């Protein structure tokens, strides 16, 4: 799949999109992303008016409601600075979803402009800042779940590149790695049986490798997988990619 062409931004000023899921549940992830970006010398601006990217209604089929939220997001993130989010899914909404539901709208141009400066965290670090090796250390075994909404973008390769360069980090392979975890936004509540079966399959494959952490670049996947793991009373800790990047720096005494 081809996304809208993006220009590599000049300078290190950026607009941080925390994502609604981090705003509500996972502040630790958003903090880690900010600390990581600031360590890299970025000037991180957090627009206070931000809410949600509009994806829940887009995926749920209510494009009219979704477009309202996207228009709000356009307003909040206006300007020329790149928008960086610790989520492949929210980024995919800006890159591909919003332009799709605005195809016949007058303000499509604005949506495309935002798409042209939207970056998922790892994609931004590797492909905008040109960083290919990550400093510090993280002496743990991790299973990295590639979130589906990163398909077709540079995010998966970028995340893998950063993770595999970390001192002491062991990246394990597990069965059916490329298969979806079953979250899918509103799908997870409208198709709970299928969603849970897909999630359980993912968890079984991951758990078989006995990793210290299950890692993803999307808290949506981890919210769903973590929910199943916790409901079963199993012990499989989860971390967002941003937390590993930050903790690696901390472990190396760099932060």
């Amino acid at each position: 799949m081809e996304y809208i062409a993006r220009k590599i931004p000049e300078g290190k000023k950026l607009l941080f999109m925390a994502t609604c899921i981090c705003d509500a549940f996972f502040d630790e992830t958003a903090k880690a992303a900010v600390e990581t970006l600031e360590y890299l010398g970025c000037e991180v601006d957090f627009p206070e008016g931000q809410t949600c990217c509009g994806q829940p209604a887009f995926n749920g089929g209510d494009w009219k409601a979704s477009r309202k939220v996207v228009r709000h997001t356009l307003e909040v993130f206006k300007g020329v600075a790149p928008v960086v989010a610790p989520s492949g899914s929210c980024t995919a909404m800006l890159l591909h979803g919003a332009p799709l539901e605005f195809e016949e709208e007058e303000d499509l141009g604005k949506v495309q402009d935002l798409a042209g400066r939207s970056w998922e965290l790892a994609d931004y670090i590797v492909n905008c800042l040109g960083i290919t090796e990550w400093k510090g250390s993280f002496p743990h075994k991790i299973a990295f779940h590639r979130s589906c909404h990163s398909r077709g973008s540079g995010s998966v390769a970028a995340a893998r590149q950063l993770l595999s360069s970390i001192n002491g980090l062991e990246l394990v392979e597990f069965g059916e790695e490329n298969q979806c975890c079953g979250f899918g936004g509103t799908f997870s509540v409208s198709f709970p049986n299928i969603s849970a079966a897909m999630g359980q399959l993912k968890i079984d494959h991951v758990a078989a490798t006995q990793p210290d952490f299950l890692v993803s670049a999307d808290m949506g996947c981890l919210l769903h997988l973590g929910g199943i793991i916790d409901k079963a009373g199993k012990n499989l800790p989860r971390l967002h990619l941003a937390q590993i990047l930050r903790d690696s720096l901390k472990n190396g005494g760099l932060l």
Partner: protein
Amino acid sequence: MKTYQEIDRHARDVNPDRQSAVYSVASALAEKRVNAFQRDYADPDRLRRLAGQIKQHTLEHLDHYLQMAETSFQENGAQVHFASDGTRCNQIVLDILKKNDCRKVVKSKSMLSEETELNGFLTEHGIDSVETDLGELIIQLDNDHPSHIIAPIIHKNRREVARCFDREGLGDYNDEPEVITRRARSYLRKQYMDADAGLTGANFVVAESGRISLVTNEGNARFCLAATRLHIVIVGIEKIIPGDRDLALFHNLIARSGTGQRLTVYNQFIGGPKAENQPHGPQQMHVVFVDNKRTEALASNCREILRCIRCGACQNICPVYRQATGFAYRGTYGGPVGSVLSPLLAGENFAQKADLPKASSLCGACRDVCPVDIPIPDLLLRLRDKGKRESSKKAGAGTPPMGIWAIMSTQPAAWKAALRLGYALNYPPTQAFPNPALQAWRSVRKFPPWRGGKFRRWMKDRKKSSE
């Protein structure tokens, strides 16, 4: 657990052995596919894109190519018919058979004939129509339906097949695959010899040469034409490709995408009835082009689905299909392609099938394997939008209403208030609130602790301390 969507209910209630059998066959086929592409091509995606462009071009000029195909077939001595819908298609086929005193038809696999329910129609009118693809034969004997585009009996095991053959007089119970196939073979040989007409679909129709291309692994399509007087082809109007040279690309793609083969075992190119200097073959060839809502699909914003070459790759890779299995999709086509095609082909009954596009986590695996580069998730999303606009109850079942969310998400003050209110979720009694989405979530998962607004405060403090 309680669920509002039919496909999810089907997945919950499906026999676990059947589900795991479907899962393993589908994933084995998907793995063969990926190996075939990786082994043979440096950049398979370029081929998929090229094939998609060729089909899209043909669809956008379908009036031109359909006319070209008609002329070419006629020049080759074939007769061309056009059917606006399934009923018309069946009637045309029956009329041709009656006019030529045909009482028995041997037929090769055609999903279109499933769409038009041709076998049932012919039987009603006193014509004996026998399926010759092994899987389809078993389906016919069992009075069942195919549950997969290329593996029609993916939902059956060999014991069920052995019982069927026993019951239908093809031989006493024996579930050795070799015995089963031998029995089918000897049964079918007789059918081929007794038949008056051969009925096939077409994998591709070449406009420039008036040729159909058939791909099979059993050679049965070829046998259907070996001892019959008449050949009837029924084919959807979207199966046209411009030229013979395009076949090279499509043959390479369809075999690898469907079964991971480099080429299917039997590849036939039929351009008209038996020529005078040929010793054998049907004396008549009839090509029936069927619309059956395809023109409407072409006019819709989901027209890319008409590129589909029915390889089944999207079905095999789909994690939702693997859980739900084929019958969950309530139609001729299952899996992602069915979720797009069935609602479109339903025409004015769209609302009845509008839940199908919801049965996807939108993971995009189908898009990544499609040999004609159909952006299936985009089409699913467009149909979700259509389902909502047309207020389909089936589509909306179980999806949380988005009105309040949209209001909150466009007013930062309301959003911040909601971030505070969310803390109520940390108390078990609140979690028991009878909201369908909340309960669906909780039925299979735990909620993480609500920590609304904590990040915002941390950002503020950080800014203050740095000033």
